[in-house]
């Protein structure tokens, strides 16, 4: 069974039903930790005093905040946890689409991040994933597959919007592997 979306792209009904529907609402399994700020700052040699000088943080942001681009890391599952089977995957809609379309490889080609209220240590972040669009089959230098756009909205424990991420993914079969 298939359906044609507004852009005239023929999609399996399962995929058409996913578009615009919030999926996989999740709440982080642990609160925001200051130590993750230092992991990111060290990985990028970022000396912004907002994160290294509590006096600056107190003056400008009323206390320590996380670097904005750490927005998504709170929702990324542990690589392993008791009782979980197989690899734990973030951005499940992306992996659903790979499976539905039978596309073993995938890359992210575009990423938009919008930053709202700062995230602070102790916050508990929640999100949901919304599939916005899926393209017709395309062939690129990587192979043949489809592009898709997934939005992820992040809120803190008070329901305050802290950020939105939008991802464009390309799932594909490598050239010559069909």
């Amino acid at each position, binding site marked *: 069974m298939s359906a044609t979306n507004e852009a005239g792209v023929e999609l399996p009904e399962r995929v058409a039903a996913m578009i615009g529907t919030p999926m996989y609402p999740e709440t982080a399994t642990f609160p925001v930790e200051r130590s*993750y700020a230092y*992991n*990111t*700052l*060290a*990985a*990028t*040699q*970022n*000396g*912004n*005093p*907002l994160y*290294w*000088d509590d*006096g*600056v943080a107190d*003056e*400008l*942001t009323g206390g320590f905040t996380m*670097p*904005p*681009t*750490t927005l*998504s*890391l709170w929702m*990324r599952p542990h*690589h392993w946890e008791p009782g979980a089977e197989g*690899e734990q995957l*973030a951005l499940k809609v992306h992996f659903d689409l790979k499976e539905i379309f039978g596309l073993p*490889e995938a*890359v*992210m*080609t*575009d*990423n*938009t*991040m*919008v*930053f*709202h*209220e*700062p995230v602070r240590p102790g916050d508990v972040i929640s999100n949901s994933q919304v599939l916005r669009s899926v393209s017709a089959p395309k062939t690129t230098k990587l192979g043949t597959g489809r592009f898709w756009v997934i939005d992820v909205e992040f809120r803190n424990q008070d329901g305050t919007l802290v950020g939105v991420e939008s991802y464009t993914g390309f799932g594909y079969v*490598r050239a010559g592997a069909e």
Partner: protein
Amino acid sequence: MSAAAPVLFGDVSVGDELPRLEVDVTPTTVVLGALASRDWRPMHHDFKFATERNGVRDIFLNTPNQAAWFERYVTDWTGPRGRLGRMTFRMRDSVFPGDRMAFSATVTGVERDDAGCGWVSLEVTLTATEEGGPERVATTCSLRVALPDAPDDNPWSRSGDRWNP
């Protein structure tokens, strides 16, 4: 360290260029960035997976870590009062160990929104160059950052209707 002497909104004009930043990429750069962003996917730490499954030459920088590098690059320029509002980036090529990555940026817009916040738009380019090879455009980033109007102005104090990223 001090929060004083920021770049002010009124000091910035379209066409201004940010200082270039160059960094040599090692396997540690890639793995540190992936783990810092809790990205456990093997193409960011497993050479055999990256080369044999993904068909690329090595492990490569992951997307969230590239975002963090863009943040670092821009806030190096703005100082701590600069507040990121939005970034859109497009990956054209990967950044691998052995590459020298370089960040450069041009101011493409200055505008004040209805809430009175001063926004600067930047086009940031990340290139990667393997020794002896051509400079490749790896990622381009359109970025919007709020700057203070005066040394005592603070974009971080904005929220709700006064913050429109």
